């Protein structure tokens, strides 16, 4: 029964390639996301250099289009989402007191599909041109784009999207089924709740993207006519399909950040989160309304006044639950003993920054006014305010907050404060000015502008801010490299409130030697206040069953990637070979008996220092 493969016998590389441990998968998601974040950041830098002066010849128009497409696509699909997935994977099972996620194998498959999808998308730059139709890839621009760029976009996102969908289903089942005794839904930490709602959004939204990309693929590669008006197709329907996915997507990007901020603000204010149930409810309402407002991206497409009005009102309704959340954070801080750590600084800076983005969002939601704003830099300023001021601040806050738990050393606070202030100033310098650029009429997605239109100074200032952000990010990387000696006080450095701080740092493979018993919201804090500071055990110390690692996910993802290249270059043989590899690996997975292994009690006792 116990064909135990102790991790000490495996080489490090083999261990990481075959792992099904949610913590290692989370770390790989995190670094994959960081890698693509860097690439997309460099793309943004190049664009800001091109826009520094009027009629600059730094980049060609085609290159500029490719860069803006890749910047958007990479930042959303390959940077922000994986970084959040990294935190979700690492933290969420710990927060609910689970030993692992519900489907460790599928979790690993999701990770490798994301990595391979990202590679497919980025190989396009070396293979004769990246996608150039914007991250939205509107038809007919995308269906008539020459070369293979958009095909890479379609197939890369298809592969990465499949992985995302798998991970989301895995998170949903984990949260529904794997909670420790006493951990009712309304005792779950907010980050777990936002993970849950985000996964629901992914589950309902990503199929729409899958279909949209499929139709695009049919039109481009297999001679379809879904979006060819000459053949009776309809181009507006592509926008509808895309935004039916795309609007929930932007809430997928912000809700996990809301969760991270809820954790951080209540931890560093030393107070229970104000209005917990209202926060949960607001999260669900935001998630639900996210599906009801997609057409506000298309006010100028000619939908008709009644439709515009309905979608405008629905969009403004989202401001209500979001406002509830903002006030709950403020009231959590109210009267708390606030400590200004880097993580909390990001959380505090998030509130005004995100509100600014929300205000411009409500402005954009007024359909009549949107005829002025549409496709100007005002829109660019708005979504960078919510995505950087919300999601990216959330990622940085989570990075500083959970780093000791994930890597066993604390990031330097002093260098972190430099990073925070430079990034904050750079961010506002870059994007605040863009509101006015948009209001005086600078269109978005243009490679250059003429002199004498009043755009010069603002664009120059904007570029300076972008460089400041780049410098700040370099400081973060330096911080990661030089802080490795801060290995003291990593188990519970912030005097945490939730379960993940009840484990050792770095976390044992099995998370908890004994499944903890949860007696209240903020379970660890309750034990600190009313117990002995340690979690009560819900079970006797016994041997722990663990799943075996597997190399199959990499090959399944590889097969799909080969098939994707076959589609891009219309090579039937390659499509067949890739799919054959994938299905062969799935077949092996299905018939191979794999009962996992058991960790004996002696080893657990040794880890606890009782052996």
């Amino acid at each position, binding site marked *: 029964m116990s064909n135990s493969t102790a991790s000490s016998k495996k080489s490090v590389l083999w261990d990481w390639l075959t792992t099904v441990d949610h913590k290692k998968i989370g770390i790989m998601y995190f670094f994959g996301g960081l890698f693509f974040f860097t690439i997309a950041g460099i793309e943004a830098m190049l664009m800001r250099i091109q826009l520094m002066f009027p009629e600059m010849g730094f980049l060609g128009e085609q290159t500029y289009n490719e860069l803006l497409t890749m910047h958007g696509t990479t930042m959303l699909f390959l940077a922000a989402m994986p970084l959040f997935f990294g935190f979700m994977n690492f933290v969420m099972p710990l927060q609910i007191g689970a030993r692992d996620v519900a489907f460790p194998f599928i979790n690993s498959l999701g990770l490798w599909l994301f990595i391979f999808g990202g590679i497919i998308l980025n190989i396009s730059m070396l293979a004769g041109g990246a996608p150039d139709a914007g991250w939205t890839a509107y038809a007919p621009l995308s269906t008539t784009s020459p070369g293979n760029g958009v095909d890479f976009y379609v197939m890369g996102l298809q592969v990465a999207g499949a992985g995302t969908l798998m991970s989301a289903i895995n998170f949903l089942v984990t949260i529904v089924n794997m909670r420790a005794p006493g951990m009712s839904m309304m005792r779950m930490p907010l980050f777990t709740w936002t993970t849950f709602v985000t996964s629901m959004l992914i589950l*309902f939204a990503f199929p729409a993207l899958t279909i949209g990309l499929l139709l695009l693929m049919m039109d481009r590669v297999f001679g379809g006519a879904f979006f060819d008006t000459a053949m009776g197709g309809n181009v507006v329907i592509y926008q509808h399909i895309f935004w039916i996915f795309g609007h929930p997507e932007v809430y997928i990007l912000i809700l996990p950040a809301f969760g991270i901020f809820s954790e951080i603000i209540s931890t560093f204010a030393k107070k229970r989160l104000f209005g917990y149930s209202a926060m949960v409810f607001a999260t669900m309402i935001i998630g639900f309304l996210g599906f009801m407002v997609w057409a506000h991206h298309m006010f100028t497409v*000619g939908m008709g006044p009644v*439709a515009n009005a309905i979608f405008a009102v629905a969009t403004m309704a989202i401001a209500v639950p979001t406002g509830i959340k903002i006030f709950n954070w403020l009231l959590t801080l109210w009267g708390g003993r606030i400590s200004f750590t880097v993580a909390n600084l990001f959380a505090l800076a998030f509130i005004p920054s995100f509100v600014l983005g929300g205000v411009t969002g409500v402005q954009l939601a007024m359909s009549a006014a949107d005829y002025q704003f549409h496709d100007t830099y005002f829109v660019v300023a708005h979504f960078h305010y919510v995505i950087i001021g919300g999601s990216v601040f959330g990622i940085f806050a989570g990075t500083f907050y959970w780093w000791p738990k994930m890597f066993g050393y604390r990031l330097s606070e002093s260098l972190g404060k430099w990073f925070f202030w430079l990034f904050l100033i750079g961010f506002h310098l870059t994007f605040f000015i863009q509101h006015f650029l948009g209001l005086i009429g600078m269109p978005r997605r243009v490679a250059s502008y003429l002199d004498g239109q009043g755009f010069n100074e603002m664009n120059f200032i904007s570029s300076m801010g972008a460089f400041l952000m780049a410098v700040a990010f370099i400081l973060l990387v330096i911080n990661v490299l030089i802080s490795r000696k801060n290995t003291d006080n990593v188990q519970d450095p912030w005097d945490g409130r939730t379960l993940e701080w009840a484990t050792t740092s770095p976390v044992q493979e099995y998370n908890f030697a004994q499944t903890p018993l949860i007696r209240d919201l903020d379970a660890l804090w309750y034990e600190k206040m009313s117990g002995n500071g340690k979690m009560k055990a819900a079970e006797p110390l016994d041997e722990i069953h663990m799943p075996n690692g597997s190399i199959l996910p990499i090959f399944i993802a590889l097969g799909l990637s080969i098939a994707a290249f076959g589609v891009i270059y219309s090579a039937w043989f390659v499509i067949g070979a890739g799919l054959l590899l994938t299905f062969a690996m799935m077949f092996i997975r299905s018939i191979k008996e794999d009962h996992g292994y058991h960790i004996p009690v002696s080893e657990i006792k040794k880890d606890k220092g009782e052996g």
Partner: protein
Amino acid sequence: MSHVDPSAPLEGGPSKEEERKLKRESRSQLVSFMFMIFITTTAFLTVASDIVPTGFAIPFVLLLAGIQVVMQLYNFMHMNEGSRWINVMIWAGLFVAAMTVAALAVLIGIDKY
């Protein structure tokens, strides 16, 4: 090595309560099955017969289809067991999809409002 359910008891039959539950389930399965066949037959007859006008037949058949979907989910796909989240998500997904389709069909379809 056959697949043995590790949680099942190794010997002895089911308990009295278990037996009653199984009986109840098999009866409800049979009744539901008959009802499904009846509904399907009704739908076929509705379309086949000349008595029922087309304007009534289409919504009526769609209504029967809706009833069948719900029965299928609850009686044959065990949606009444397990977690309530399954119910929440299926219905939420249906609702979201219905709203989306309705918006696309009514508001921004052929006639724009």
